[in-house]
């Protein structure tokens, strides 16, 4: 190699690069908040399969990546299952407040929800149950496209800002 880039220096750099690359891939694989290393094409094929797979009579779990693909095509409506106060303090952008605690009082709003979009319920994340309950009620009310985003507020706000004003709907 040249005087300014001797072969041994290049070898050192490549060795470091290789070690860091392998460590990074393994660590990312083991890290629960790791980044998905699939090409976007595979993710899009994945969402099609997710939508078309047999629709069970219960809400379908949806990942953040899948949710974002649905939101990108305006094929999903986010439903915030937490209390109105929590919703006001911060919610996913575009989400509609539908507190599970008020379920019986919200029938008028529920019957206006679209049937041609995925209704994606969420709550705080980290094992919260409000979204699951809300999803089950929606299925019981005759909605076929119901999903639960279990990551919830907790996962979303690690990557994206929350909205604070009233919903856009």
């Amino acid at each position, binding site marked *: 190699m040249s005087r300014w880039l001797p072969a041994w220096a290049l070898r050192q750099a490549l060795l470091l690069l290789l070690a860091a690359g392998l460590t990074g*891939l393994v660590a990312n694989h083991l890290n629960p*908040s*790791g980044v998905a290393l699939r090409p976007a094409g595979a993710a899009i094929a994945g969402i099609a399969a997710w939508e078309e797979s047999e629709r069970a009579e219960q809400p379908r779990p949806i990942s953040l990546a899948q949710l974002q693909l649905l939101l990108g095509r305006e094929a999903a409506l986010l439903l915030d299952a937490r209390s109105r106060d929590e919703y006001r303090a911060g919610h996913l952008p575009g989400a509609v407040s539908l507190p599970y605690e008020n379920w019986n009082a919200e029938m008028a709003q529920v019957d206006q929800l679209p049937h041609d979009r995925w209704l994606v319920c969420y709550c705080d994340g980290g094992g919260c149950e409000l979204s699951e309950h809300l999803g089950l009620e929606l299925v019981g009310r005759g909605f076929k496209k119901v999903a639960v985003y279990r990551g919830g507020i907790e996962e979303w706000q690690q990557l994206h800002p929350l909205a604070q004003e009233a919903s856009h709907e």
Partner: protein
Amino acid sequence: MSDPAGNRLATLLRLGLAVVFIYASLDKIAHPAAFAAAIGHYQLLPGFLAALLAAILPWLELGCGLALLLNRGMAGATLLAAGMNLVFILAITTALARGLDISCGCFSTSDAGSRVGVTRLLEDLVLLLAAGWLYLRAIAAPRPDFA
């Protein structure tokens, strides 16, 4: 060596660079997905490459930082450090030129982290000069440790 002042400066720069690179790597290693989003904000790479870079770059920073700290493989570590800083400088420059108001993703992956700006650019220039000078010293006195 016959240049004690130069040696002291080299040691100082080596340790300084080591601390900066190790510190910069930690938050990104803990939050690869958030770092991928920060890379995405630069709108320079397709999603897949941004994700790959987010998984690997922080570990490269850590590896270079540790090599600098331990004074091992200095030529390789300083070469990579200079290369990374050159890439950072290009990324920030193009972001500024395009008028992007985004978080830098330099030391913190959170959106509250510092924005891209001229200060960051100057910092990276200083780091680039330091790494470049240390690289020239390393190849001038070749003591290949592990190559």
